[in-house]
């Protein structure tokens, strides 16, 4: 490739810039019964995370005598999208639960809580792409509010490549884009303090050079989200 060709994708649906995020709303303490809870909304995507525990894990054979266990339950509510979703566990929700668990486990300090479990319930009230990222953002805030020891906060964002244009925080309409090279969706979770990435998924195709560019855009977006999370936690009391 000598010179970059022009991308077919030039304008975003809500008139956003390519690296702009949707409007973010964050609030902690939305579920009074839980030990910690948070709401994270990114445009039309709304996630509520509630954290219960650390508490003793039963049955006993599931306990880990060395450290605590993290359990994530991701669930999309039936009314979260236009076509009703069948309630209950699906193949997709199981995968996202597991992936979220892996994304969160590097930041949670579980060594001091042997034989316990921390349950995280993520419910998607309304979905317009980026639900796993909104879920991780909400879960990180809820964990902090629940007083769980953590190394640092975690923020997540979905970066996309639409034809040849790299954009941050894709919406459903963009995910379905199929002109030119088509749409690539790349959710990532970033630890703002240490600069590590704890979740990176890729749906579609992307060149290695463009991937680096996309990661940089994602990191910048995650830093913005981190500021929002910080503000919400500090204003909670």
């Amino acid at each position, binding site marked *: 490739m000598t010179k970059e060709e022009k991308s077919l994708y030039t304008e975003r649906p809500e008139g956003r810039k390519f690296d702009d995020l949707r409007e973010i709303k964050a609030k902690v303490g939305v579920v009074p019964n839980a*030990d*910690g809870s948070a709401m994270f909304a990114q445009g039309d995507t709304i996630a509520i995370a509630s954290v219960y*525990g*650390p*508490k*003793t894990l039963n049955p006993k054979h599931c306990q880990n*005598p060395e450290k605590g266990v993290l359990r994530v339950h991701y669930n999309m509510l039936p009314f979260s999208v236009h076509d009703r979703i069948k309630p209950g566990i699906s193949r997709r929700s199981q995968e996202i639960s597991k992936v979220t668990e892996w994304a969160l486990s590097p*930041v949670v*300090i579980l060594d001091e*809580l*042997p*034989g*316990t479990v921390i349950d995280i319930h993520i419910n998607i009230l309304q979905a317009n792409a980026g639900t796993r990222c909104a879920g991780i953002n909400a879960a990180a805030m809820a964990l*902090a*509010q*629940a*007083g*769980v*020891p*953590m*190394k*640092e*906060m975690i923020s997540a964002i979905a970066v996309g490549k639409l034809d040849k244009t790299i954009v941050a925080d894709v919406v459903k309409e963009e995910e379905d884009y199929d002109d030119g090279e088509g749409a690539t969706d790349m959710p990532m979770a970033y*630890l*703002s*303090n240490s600069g590590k990435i704890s979740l990176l998924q890729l749906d579609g195709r992307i060149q290695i050079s463009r991937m680096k560019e996309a990661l940089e855009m994602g990191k910048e977006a995650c830093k913005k989200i981190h500021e929002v*999370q*910080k503000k919400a*936690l*500090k204003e*909670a*009391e």
Partner: protein
Amino acid sequence: MTKEKREIVIPGEIIGSGDDFLPGDWTVKQGKDIVATRYGIIEKQDRLIKVIPISGVYIPRGGNTVIGEIKDINFNGWQVEIGGPYGAFLMLRECPGFIEESEMENVYGVGDLIVTKIFNVKRTSVDLTMKSRDGGLGKIRDGLIIKVNPHRVPRIIGKEGSMIHLIKEATGCSITVGQNGLIWIKGDNVDSRLYAKHAIEFIVENTIVGGLTEKVEAWLKDNKDKYKVSLKENKVSEGEN
């Protein structure tokens, strides 16, 4: 307590740097920086920086007086729920007097609430005792139990029990504060118990505000007429923490 509102920190936030500070509770040293590992407020004591948690489950500590519920009876003791990550166990030999094994149910039955004391915190369990030199431990037979955030308990008790004493005097109730966030209010009538309950709720809502003792005094004065409190029998409580 001098500042109006203390600074809240989040996990991963740098709260001090350089060699002038030492990391205390819930902080770690990363290179030159001291980083918080828990959501809470900062406290600086000379060179030591620590984070005081403001939320989360109760963490049992040895010597704490707590209020627990009997969950099960074994041959050698009682399983007690005191909140927090681990279960607690009250051994038969930690109860004063001789108790026949067949009599255990009559002493503390399943569902009973007891005021008890933690004497040992093990890695994954807690040992309780009913033997105490200060007294005040035993079964709860009447009164009102309220639940608050366990991290607010130090403010409810106040310095050397000043705050709780203030409420006891104003309401005429006997109040036992469990470190696990359960509070037992024993009073002559419903009104005085509610008066005490609402006073405690007022403290919980305004924990971070400075000059709390004066504010509670003012609150107690302002709201006195709402409750029909008789201070004839101003008993001094037996179970103080």
